[in-house]
């Protein structure tokens, strides 16, 4: 979080990384275990941001825009869904509903009851220009703040970066962003 490591993955634990973060963050949200990895990481990242910055929860229910992006879309879940009908006998509905990358936006919106603007884009790599431009555009319309994220998950590769943009914090938008700046370490 903001360049400081707040939690490190325990390699020995029976729980996977997302479960470790979930428990460490003392969250209680029954829908969590139904989510795919994209949604889990997006959800956890948002919860950690909210814990760190209480003012996020003070915004009106349609004032926060959700702007997310990645390069692999929902490939991680797509592979699992395809396996369900090719190898496991039957297409799995609970996997299919996660075979769209924008579902993670839905999960964040549901959790927080946020009715604001949504956008999911796919880029070859994190595009700070696009985020900077588009946040400014939305902030000049009906939006008061933007919750943004790059959530790229495929197999063991986890590259997750979230940031919160408000009207007063203009400087933060323009800085070149790097993936280590958030609380979640990624492992190859």
């Amino acid at each position, binding site marked *: 979080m903001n360049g400081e490591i707040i939690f490190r993955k325990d390699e020995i634990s029976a729980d996977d990384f997302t*479960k470790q973060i979930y428990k460490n963050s003392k969250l209680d949200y*029954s*829908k969590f*275990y*139904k989510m795919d990895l994209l949604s889990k990481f997006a959800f956890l990242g948002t919860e950690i941001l909210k814990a760190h910055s209480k003012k996020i929860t003070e915004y009106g229910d349609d004032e926060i825009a959700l702007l997310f992006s990645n390069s692999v879309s929902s490939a991680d879940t797509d592979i699992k869904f395809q396996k369900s009908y090719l190898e496991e*006998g*039957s297409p*799995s*509905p*609970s996997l299919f*509903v996660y075979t769209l990358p924008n579902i993670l936006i839905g999960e964040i919106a549901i959790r927080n009851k946020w009715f604001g603007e949504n956008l999911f884009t796919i880029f070859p790599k994190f595009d700070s220009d696009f985020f900077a431009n588009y946040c400014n555009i939305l902030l000049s319309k009906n939006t008061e703040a933007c919750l943004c994220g790059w959530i790229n998950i495929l197999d063991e590769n986890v590259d997750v970066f979230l940031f919160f943009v408000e009207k007063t914090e203009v400087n933060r938008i323009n800085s070149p962003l790097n993936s280590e700046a958030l609380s979640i370490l990624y492992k190859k």
Partner: protein
Amino acid sequence: MTSLKEDLKKQIIEQLNLEDVQVSDIQDDAPLFGGGLGLDSIDALELIVLLEKHYGIKITNPEKGKDVFYSINSMAEYITSPKG
């Protein structure tokens, strides 16, 4: 019948990814939906998959699932009863 119900509980926990839920947490007669397990409409569809995968029973209309999946008891009842 008891081991069928035991099996059902294990299968449900596995099929629906019910983390931190033990077989002993699921009561035979407790409603599966609207109760403590937090199951939703997608879980109901997964139970249809479960019935076919483990018991070869096909439900072609998800509305029928509401009665069948009411509880472990109703599921066991449906599995063991003769079908037309």
